């Protein structure tokens, strides 16, 4: 019996050493946080793929969706930024032709657009969505304006309130979208 135990101890010595080495590693560098869904779960529910609700995991009965990895409306997995602000910005800038939109970086750049009423001037806008949180300072919009002089387009100043007004439009729309979702 003792022989068996000694043999087991011998076999297990490398196993004991490895965590110690990792502990030393832990002391000098910070690792990646392991999420709860990366551990085995022997409940029967965990063995079923997907959820009837379409949510990532269970129905949200209280608080805020913190999943941040798909399913949740406020922090959709397909987007790197807040989904309400993203959709609201697209809605608000929809009167301009879209040049590029990066949902992960949160950047929307439009092309030049001349309003039919004023063919001598054109506008362009750049919008930045700054994070996953739905916050009033989560969006920045810069509007650029050019005027046609002697057949060429030259830069012209924009009224100082224009950018802020556009941002307020986006925030109002975002709030509207959120209340619509919450009401469902």
């Amino acid at each position, binding site marked *: 019996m003792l022989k068996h135990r000694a043999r087991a101890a011998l076999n297990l010595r490398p196993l*004991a050493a490895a965590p110690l080495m990792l502990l030393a590693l832990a002391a000098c560098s910070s*690792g990646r946080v*392991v999420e709860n869904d990366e551990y*085995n779960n022997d409940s029967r*529910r965990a063995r079923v793929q997907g959820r*009837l609700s379409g949510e990532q995991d269970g129905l949200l009965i209280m608080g805020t969706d913190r999943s941040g990895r798909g399913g949740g409306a406020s922090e959709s997995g397909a987007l790197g930024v807040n989904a309400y602000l993203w959709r609201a910005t697209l809605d608000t800038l929809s009167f301009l032709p879209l040049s590029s939109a990066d949902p992960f970086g949160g950047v929307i750049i439009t092309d030049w657009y001349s309003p039919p009423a004023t063919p001598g001037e054109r506008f362009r806008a750049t919008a930045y969505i700054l994070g996953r949180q*739905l916050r*009033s300072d989560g969006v920045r919009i810069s509007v650029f304006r050019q005027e046609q002089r002697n057949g060429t387009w030259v830069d012209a100043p924009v009224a100082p309130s224009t950018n802020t007004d556009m941002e307020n439009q986006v925030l109002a729309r975002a709030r509207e979208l*959120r209340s619509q979702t919450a009401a469902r």
Partner: protein
Amino acid sequence: MRKILLGTTAVVGAVVMASTGAMAQGADPFRAAGPAMTSHRDLEVRLGGFFRFYYSNTDQDYLNNGTGTGAGRTGFNQGKSDFQEETEIHIVANGKAANGLRYGVAVEIQNDSVRQATSGTNSKTSLDLDEVWGYVAGSFGQLRMGDEDNVWGLMSVGQIANFATGGLDGDFYDSLSGNSPALSQPSDAGDNTKIIYMSPQFAGFDFGASFAFNTGEGPLSGCTTGNASCDRLASIETFGSSTARRRNEVVAALRYRGSFAGVGLGASAAYIGADAVKNTNGFGVDRINVGALGLQLSAYGFLVGGQYLFGDAGLGFATPRLKLVNDDRRYEAFNVGASYTLGQITVGAQYGETRSAGAQSVNTAGLANTGGRTDKGLSVGGTYRISPGIEYIAEYTTYKIEEAGVNFATGGRGTANNSVDGQVFLTGFRFAF
């Protein structure tokens, strides 16, 4: 609009800062107005559920044995077919404090399909708790505490259970009438109340350790009737095999996960150790010393894996071995499996085998059963995912137990009926929300 928003921010922010101090989150105009105590902005509480409905066809030895009262003839006969249902309700709360500390609680309520109707329990549909645990986590890793599997259960790889009801870790046990095989699946040690540390991941590696004083679950740390049933039982004078329980259970595990040229690789190694309740007036009980290894590979929809466990233990790695003369057989077990997933269909198979000292029952005369035992099981099956959260499964499982000196028809010692086998076919639906 912005003025309104900022105004709201200032008012709500002031209320929150005043009432929760340093724990307040960043000012947020979308935080519900009102005292901080009623704001659940930083908490996420979810309700989840599970339900299954299966047709079960069971063919097991010594259950359809005619009439009479002779050896192995109980006079009871059982049919093969039955329907069965099982349900679970999970409540999970997760939150994050302003300092980045993550915390949460998971409560799993289930109807215990295994429990018989007893004097204290009216039916098999009574609710009880499966796993219940809380955690705090951060850059230091995760500290988890409660009724939960040990770290071999939580971090092992190589068990192929992603098809049908879960192969040899699946639902076929619910169809058996005694004589269940011991097939050494990672969660076999159960959810005794314990404390668990699990590290962050470094270069694909993470590790963990868990400790439990004994095999008890739940709030009761004493006992309701009789000292032998106490969670904190340390030693006993009149020993039965049921009192060969773990004490001071220590499990340490190391896990690696990575991918090479499109092939996913997972490996794990663990030590499972525990003292045992002592016998002060007779034979001793061996300490559990078990090593566990697991390996799995995944690519192109295939998943193959296996686990190997070895060392000093009794019938399974979670049961201590009695120090009986001529019964010092080492514990050794493996399971291997493979599955293939194409679109909404997964098919798979798992085979497992455990060689151990066996049942080790001791009668009043002190005579012990000393024959070695072999448990074998094979499960094949498939899953069709009808839509997210609804699955149709079909599974066939066969198993065989052999142990010299045990009469499986009567459950006692004997030279006859030294092996038992059974086959279970399950098919039905399962739902999760």
